[in-house]
């Protein structure tokens, strides 16, 4: 059998079902490759010996009706995994071992998946380069000293570097799509309410969404089938009829109307990005779909809106990390002293910064000017999409304003870092689904992604468009295993 770790998820599933491969063989291959890949620093916690035991157990009494039969999968360290350390890449949860499982990961294990380990990310999902993790930076498999993107940097690196056949990340402002774009992989952020948030360390509750990160669209669709379920334990989970995303995958997008929003053509956008976008437009036409020029007038207000709403919610969500019930505690002379020391020492600087922003915009005298204002602008942004969807079925944009940058390049410039999310953030504010697919390379040979945004609950539609385009694009990720 050719390099197991080079196979797609679907191919591995097929081979296991046909008994051409055992779960143990597959798991061992990924474990070995992961062990050789420590330089990438993609893992925070490895669970390799347990994984191998579980794989053996699967092989002893296999169930081939499952969608992920005996498939090893590593997941972002934001998903609470029962008995396995879950840190959110933070010192404050450095020693935290949940006694419960997130709904999304439970869905994966129920379908036969086997946990390989927990993947590195930006601390509490706050970042766009995986440079804020307490456990150190993650390297992009594309090239040395290149960021993989963030916050799901470890996830993107792991999939791109084939340390895991597939993974799940979370996306609050672009944290699945942007690293997918930076690493030449596929990342889907489902409609808000599609995947349960129960058991996921919360960052910004009205924006967070879990989603698959894969090597291709078909793999992505399969995992989406597994993880997207209605969950009554999450009050924001939506009970809608979910498609069988992989089964219903189709390249036929004839007659679909794809919108091109002019406002996404930002000042100073690199020519490579514009060219990539144009190429994408051509591919769309070649698939028989129609291109329509649209306007999303409030696009430029999305990023400022996001940087009020997300920190506000985060400042409140992170209040529970106080050293009382779990996690890191720094001893103090009294309760307030304990709180202040614990949180100053336990949280990294980006997290502290965002908590401060969030606290400020919610504080007395500023609520109306900032938080309330942002919620109103959010309504306008959503309305833009609602209007556009009266005339188009989906929207095509670049995923990121550039390819991956060097580690350390943007670390001291928060605004420059935040601008990474300029194309992805509006989608979270509107709660829509969007997928990033690798669509080309820049002059340096680094991957660039295109984003397809859909109507609410139209994951199937955007997967289909992505599937059709993927065939035309014929993207090849240039991985030379530089780190091994």
């Amino acid at each position: 059998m050719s390099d197991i770790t080079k196979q797609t998820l679907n191919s591995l599933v097929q081979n296991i079902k046909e008994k051409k491969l055992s779960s143990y063989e597959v798991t061992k291959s990924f474990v070995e490759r992961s062990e050789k890949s420590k330089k990438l620093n993609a893992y925070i916690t490895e669970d390799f010996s347990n994984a191998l035991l579980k794989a053996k157990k699967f092989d002893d009494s296999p169930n081939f009706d499952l969608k992920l039969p005996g498939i090893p999968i590593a997941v972002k360290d934001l998903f609470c995994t029962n008995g396995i350390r879950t840190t959110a890449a933070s010192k404050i949860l450095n020693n935290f071992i949940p006694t419960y499982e997130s709904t999304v990961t439970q869905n994966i294990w129920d379908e036969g998946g086997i946990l390989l380990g927990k993947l590195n990310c930006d601390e509490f999902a706050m970042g766009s380069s995986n440079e804020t993790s307490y456990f150190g930076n993650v390297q992009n498999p594309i090239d040395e000293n290149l960021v993989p993107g963030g916050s799901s940097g470890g996830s993107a690196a792991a999939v791109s570097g084939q340390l895991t056949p597939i993974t799940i990340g979370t996306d609050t402002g672009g944290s699945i799509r942007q690293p997918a774009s930076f690493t030449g992989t596929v990342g889907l952020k489902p409609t808000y309410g599609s995947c349960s948030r129960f058991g996921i360390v919360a960052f910004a509750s009205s924006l967070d969404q879990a989603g698959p990160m894969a090597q291709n669209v078909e793999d992505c669709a399969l995992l989406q089938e597994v993880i997207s379920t209605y969950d009554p334990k999450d009050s924001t989970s939506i009970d809608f009829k979910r498609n069988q995303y992989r089964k219903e995958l189709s390249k036929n997008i004839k007659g679909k109307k794809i919108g091109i929003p002019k406002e996404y053509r930002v000042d100073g956008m690199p020519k490579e990005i514009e060219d990539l976008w144009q190429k994408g437009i051509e591919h769309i036409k070649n698939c028989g779909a129609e291109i329509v020029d649209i306007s999303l007038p409030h696009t430029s207000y999305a990023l400022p809106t996001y940087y009020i709403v997300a920190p506000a919610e985060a400042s409140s969500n992170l209040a529970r990390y106080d050293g009382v019930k779990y996690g890191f505690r720094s001893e103090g002379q009294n309760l307030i002293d304990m709180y202040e020391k614990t949180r100053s020492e336990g949280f990294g600087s980006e997290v502290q910064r965002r908590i401060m922003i969030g606290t400020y915009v919610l504080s007395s005298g500023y609520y109306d000017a900032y938080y309330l204002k942002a919620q109103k602008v959010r309504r306008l942004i959503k309305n833009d999409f609602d209007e556009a969807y009266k005339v188009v079925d989906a929207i095509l944009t670049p995923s990121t304003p550039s390819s991956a940058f060097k580690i350390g390049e943007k670390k001291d410039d928060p605004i420059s870092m935040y601008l990474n999310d300029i194309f992805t953030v509006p989608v979270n504010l509107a709660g829509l689904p969007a997928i990033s697919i690798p669509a080309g390379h820049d002059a340096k040979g680094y991957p660039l992604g295109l984003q397809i945004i859909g109507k609410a609950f139209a994951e199937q539609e955007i997967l289909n468009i992505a599937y059709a385009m993927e065939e035309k694009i014929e993207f090849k990720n240039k991985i030379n295993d530089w780190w091994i």
Partner: protein
Amino acid sequence: MSIDLKTIKHISKLSRISVDDKKAEKLAGDLNSIFDFIEKLSELKTDNVQPLTSVAETTLKLRPDEIKSKNIREQILKNSPADNEDFFVVPKVVE
């Protein structure tokens, strides 16, 4: 909009994160540039716009009044930094 040291100290008290003067200065600088960026929103007229709190297109689901969670005290206290079988323990509050 200028955020001064006094404001930083106030916010850090509200968020229970300690800051010394050096840290406060850096934070003030960071926050000021971030807020310059955020100021853009004031360009928009939004008087008659309804704020959007949630994009989840559904109503709040009500659950039945059942006791499903039993005594899991050991689990609850397992991760706590203090070593007590019955309680969470914190330094005294100064009232």
